């Protein structure tokens, strides 16, 4: 029983911690791309990586202040979005998907390559760039705080607080934008691109704006993650994370303002609960070691996400809150 309570507490912390914020911000960005505009961006993690490394490189390599790093990260993400959008936004959905996933994977492997080691420290990554941010916390970051049966260090609590404020602001922005004329054009593009074009709107330009906006949210997510872990390692930014964010978005409901946020909290809660639960079942000997060892548990979360994505898409593509008519399911 105490195991179960522990697992619930750990899962709750995970659902509220910086990882959930990371996925929430990624998913808010994907929501702008996929949910509202119908762009199938599978390279969201690339923007997050640029955000995280924007801070890491600026602070630890160039010795700049933290906030300059934030600006660098956002600018880098915007530039990548423009470079990526320029050739690909005219293409059909599945082509865009292939190009974006290729870019994200390529960028990660470039960052971890030997040639990039002078800048990114290769596979080992960068660390020690978040002290000036942690030092801003209005409370003591050295001691631990107990909230709802979970234990947080002051630093974690500060990152989570700022992160959720960011998520709230991002959601508010998306909410306001999507009920503006601009947002209605985006949704119209998702529904029928040609009709929008016939109305005299520059579809290409709207798509590009949506791509850039979502990319900035992705970069912010990557920054929260980098600051939360205190390190920026290229291999943290694997493609699978994009799909975790997609799973969170679809779980919560695409084309809904709070869909990605709720989805991320629930997804992280479920994943962490399954993780902790399986580990304790294995250590108690309830699941025999021959069937599943504790080193395999880390992989289980992706297996779960894979199954979850398939089931959601097949049986409930609108997720918890969504509206089926608003989810883009067909390629154009």
């Amino acid at each position, binding site marked *: 029983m105490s195991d179960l309570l522990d697992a619930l507490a750990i899962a709750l912390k995970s659902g509220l911690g910086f990882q959930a914020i990371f996925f929430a911000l990624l998913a808010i960005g994907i929501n702008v791309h996929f949910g509202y505009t119908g762009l199938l961006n599978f390279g969201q993690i690339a923007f997050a990586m640029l955000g995280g490394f924007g801070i890491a490189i600026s602070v630890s390599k160039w010795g700049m202040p933290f906030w300059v790093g934030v600006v660098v990260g956002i600018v880098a993400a915007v530039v990548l979005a423009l470079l990526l959008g320029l050739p690909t936004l005219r293409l059909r959905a599945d082509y865009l998907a292939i190009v974006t996933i290729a870019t994200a994977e390529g960028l990660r492997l470039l960052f971890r390559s030997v040639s990039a080691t002078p800048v990114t420290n290769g596979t080992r990554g960068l660390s020690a760039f978040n002290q000036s941010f942690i030092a801003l916390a209005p409370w003591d970051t050295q001691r631990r705080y107990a909230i709802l049966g979970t234990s947080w260090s002051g630093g974690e609590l500060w990152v989570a607080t700022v992160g959720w404020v960011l998520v709230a602001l991002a959601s508010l922005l998306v909410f306001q934008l999507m009920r503006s004329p601009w947002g209605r054009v985006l949704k119209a593009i998702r529904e029928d691109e040609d009709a929008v074009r016939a109305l005299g709107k520059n579809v290409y330009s709207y798509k590009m704006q949506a791509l850039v906006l979502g990319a900035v949210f992705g970069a912010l997510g990557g920054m929260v993650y980098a600051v939360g872990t205190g390190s920026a390692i290229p291999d943290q930014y694997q493609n699978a994370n994009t799909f975790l964010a997609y799973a969170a978005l679809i779980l919560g409901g695409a084309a809904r303002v709070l869909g990605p946020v709720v989805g991320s909290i629930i997804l992280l809660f479920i994943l962490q609960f399954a993780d902790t639960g399986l580990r304790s079942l294995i250590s108690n000997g309830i699941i025999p070691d021959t069937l599943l060892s504790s080193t395999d548990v880390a992989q289980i979360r992706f297996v779960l996400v894979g199954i979850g994505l398939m089931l959601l898409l*097949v049986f409930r*593509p609108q997720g918890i809150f969504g509206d089926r008519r608003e989810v883009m399911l067909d390629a154009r």
Partner: protein
Amino acid sequence: MTHALTRAPEHGARTGPPRGRPPGRFRRLFARTAGRRSLVLAMLVAAFAMSVATLLPSGVASAEGERIVGTLQTSVSGPIPDVEVTVTTASGDEVDSATTDENGRFAIDLPDGAGDYTVSIDGDALPDGVTLGPQGDTRDVTVDNGRSQPVNFGLQDGTANSGGGNVRAIQLLVDGLRFGLIIAVCAVGLSLIFGTTGLTNFAHGELVTIGAIVAWYVNVQGGVPLIAATLIAMVVGAGVGALHELALWRPLRKRGTGLVAALVVSIGLSLLLRYLLQIIYGGFSNPYAEYQSQRAQSYGVFTLTNRALASIVIALVVLVLVALMLQKTKIGKAMRAVSDNRDLAASSGIDVNRVILIVWMMGGALAALGGVLLGLSDQVQWDMGFRLLLLMFAGVTLGGLGTAYGALVGSVIIGVFVQMSTLVIPDDVKYVGGLLLLIVILVIRPQGILGSRARIG
């Protein structure tokens, strides 16, 4: 996140030289292109900032404590056994020494833990024709906590300067041809599946991995010769392909699932299968039981191991057979007809579902064969198929998504392009060429070389 954790076992586990490329050539390439590297890199970053590194430095095995590991070999001599390797501390005290085994490998444990060490080899014990690289017989290394530190001596075997750059270009051309043909074998199914069903199948890489892993289990654990194991793996691959179609995609088509939804489902399937494979097979890379310690044969201007030659021949024969089947047989014509216009094919009496099922089986079997061929040169890994997937997409898109011959042509071009690009860019970012090419094609000619305009929609 868990990624650092899940990746960790690979670091020590990746054995052998990267992509079958001997360390000597690897190092020389670096020396030759050092001046251009930064410029090229800057260009790459500017132009879409992407590339793909291939493998991590070589190590012998995963270990608890700190150790120094490495492999002595060149392309001509193959692995070099019985060479003494000595490790001394920075202050000159000898820590330990070892001799390389029959695979040319050595591993020396460091009881003193992390720190700076000097590794030296006995240059006189090298076989005839093999010489030390320009940096001599010692290397200074820094070993981190808990790390197996790989050391590369960059041995030379005389192929470097015999004929200069042309020979190297031809060697890369042949390597690229082999790689491209393997991509083509894997990608034919991907292209035909797209053509007949419209599905962009992100789970196709897992068909490749499944083939390679099934063959590995049958070959290494079951003791069956590799050729028979490959045939078994192809049968299993065909079965897995049929299972995908019957259990998942056909019901989804009946439900009227949209193409984007199907695409995301295939990603879910890919994640599910990939990580299940990692749980079952583990995060290590393992070679097949046979054909491993072959030396490269010289063919005048290039060298090739027998297994690489066999890979080329097998891939060529299989691809010609596929082409003949598509051209001459009834089912092949039906496949092309369904690819070309599904409704028209159905209305002229072709059983579309049967054709699609056969396409899936054929795609699964070919992907399994491609997986074995890839495992033969690069060893078997749980994510080998996924890493190949993007190159498959690049090849298929280049040739024309949905056309069978396009997949062949495009894949070979991508394979050659990726290998040849190492003439100007570092080896670990060589996939950039392929992926960059993918984007350039999509901009200039989205329908690919052999595709028709109507497909891009």
